[in-house]
């Protein structure tokens, strides 16, 4: 035993420490973005594009990825300049950065995904007004390092995209009985096989595709999230007394 302990060099210990601190620092960011502090579920931000564009999975995925890109770019830029910009003028600077990122992304979509650009329309430039982006710039990126800000932007964007896709698939299945319809406008003509007819011969339930369907669908998703959170809390509460007992017996 003693021999193995001495075998561990100082370098190894250092690595171990940085690795554990790496996990400690980055895992909460991922958890925050995907669940605990999810842009839609917890902060209720960015609802306008969420409700307007989530009528099919492909639209939802397109807007979700575009938003994620903007979040990553704006988070990284804000993090880079966080020590240069004076606090009095930080908000205009953030807005300029976000607007430039959105313009760049819009041009990219216009150039390479023209059909998607036509479908999403006004909602691509409207990413500028998505409060989730400026909220992350202000609350996270302006206080954290480049790496962390990148990771936060990625995870927040992923969380937003996942909710969009969940709502989009819910509405598309109920509303039209299909999944991934119009897959070619995002993945090219070779990917049309992706379109799945969930219920063949289904006439469609118009309400799910119309705007009220977005509100009702989001309400059901939020209810499901609250239900899961409540269950977890109850579990924790049940486990705690047991843990205390164990500790007591150990002492």
């Amino acid at each position, binding site marked *: 035993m003693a021999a193995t302990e001495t075998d561990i060099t100082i370098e190894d210990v250092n690595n171990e420490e940085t690795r554990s601190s790496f996990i400690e620092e980055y895992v909460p960011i991922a958890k925050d973005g995907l669940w605990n502090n999810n842009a839609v579920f917890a902060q209720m931000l960015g609802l306008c594009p969420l409700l307007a564009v989530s009528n099919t999975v492909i639209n939802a995925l397109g807007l979700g990825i575009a938003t994620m890109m903007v979040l990553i770019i704006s988070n990284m830029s804000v993090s880079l300049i966080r020590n240069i910009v004076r606090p009095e003028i930080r908000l205009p600077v953030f807005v300029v950065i976000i607007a430039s990122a959105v313009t760049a992304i819009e041009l990219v979509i216009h150039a390479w995904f023209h059909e998607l650009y036509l479908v999403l329309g006004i909602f691509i430039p409207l990413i500028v007004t998505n409060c989730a982006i400026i909220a992350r710039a202000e609350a996270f990126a302006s206080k954290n390092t480049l790496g962390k800000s990148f990771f936060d932007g990625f995870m927040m964007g992923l969380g937003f995209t996942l909710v969009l896709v969940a709502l989009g698939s819910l509405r598309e299945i109920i509303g039209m009985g299909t999944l991934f319809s119009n897959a070619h406008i995002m993945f090219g003509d070779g990917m049309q096989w992706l379109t799945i007819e969930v219920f063949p011969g289904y006439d469609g*339930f*118009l*309400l799910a595709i*119309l705007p*009220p369907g977005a509100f*009702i669908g989001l309400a059901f998703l939020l209810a499901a999230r609250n239900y899961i959170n409540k269950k977890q809390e109850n579990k924790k509460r049940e486990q705690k007394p047991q843990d205390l007992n164990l500790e007591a017996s150990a002492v």
Partner: protein
Amino acid sequence: MFLAQSSPFLKPGLSVSKMMMVVTLLMIPGIVTSIIVFGYGVLVNIILAIIFALAFEAIILYLRKRPVAVYLKDNSALLTAVIIGVALPPLAPWWLTFVGLFFAIVVAKQLYGGLGYNTFNPAMVAYAILLVSFPAEMTTYWQTPATLDGQSLSLLETLNFQLFGQLPAGMTIDALTSATPLDIVRTSVINGSATIDEIHAEGQAFGQFGGIGTEWVNLAFLAGGLFIMRKGLISWHIPISLLATLGFLSLLFGSFELDSNPSPLFHFFSGATMLGAFFIATDPVTASTTPIGRIIYGAGIGALIYIIRTWGGYPDAIAFAVLLMNMCAPLLDYYTQPRVYGHKVDERDNEESS
């Protein structure tokens, strides 16, 4: 000379369960007339609706861990089901009723907290959702009224069509159904293809005094409605202000443009006016509760019915009008609270001055 009366002199009001039952029973004249005019489809709709309503109510009460039997006995689901059954097109397929009752009982009523907590009238939520989602089924499956010479179906044939979508050989759905009077008037006025006089002459829309066929149904609902008003189960404020506003508006606009505006009588006795005025708008949970509030509430529904019927996108408007005014009911209640006996006219002013 005097009748000897013993205490108690103040009789307790009817329980919720009994009140709902009496209101449901007083819909029977209207229902029977509906069956005579529109065929057995109405009966099938109502029975299906009641089965679905009680099933949904029982399931959701069980999930919410409430006593199932106690709440089922309050008959509110029954009344909702009967209203939906009458309001749906007579030849509606069974799944239309199923989806409607799901939204009425599960979403509009129980998810909001059950009877007494729902902001919106459950039956009208269901109707609006169906009308928006399935416009074809909701507007074309109206069987030709018996007063016009059309083909009709026996009870078994109706059941076969509504449950399995099969018509007897040689019959088509187009031959069985026709546009409702409100629909005919609306489309010809909007297209400018015919004046009211010309529609009269064609004899497809106007009956003795109201819409063809629907006039008798409305008359029967009016009779039932007057009876529940007499019994004191609903106050006069909502139905009277609703009908007065509808009549006033149709008279006002009718006197300017006779060619494109049907008479107040046509508005009263076509579509679901009487059903709406006496049985739907008076729902004690979702309507306004103060006297002045009720008058404004009823007048609002009447005005909206006229506006949507005349300039809106749908032939009839009871559901949308009621839902829109449901939203205003809490505000109306807040601003029209009657002065409590013993309090000064404006308590707030006095408090500020002192």
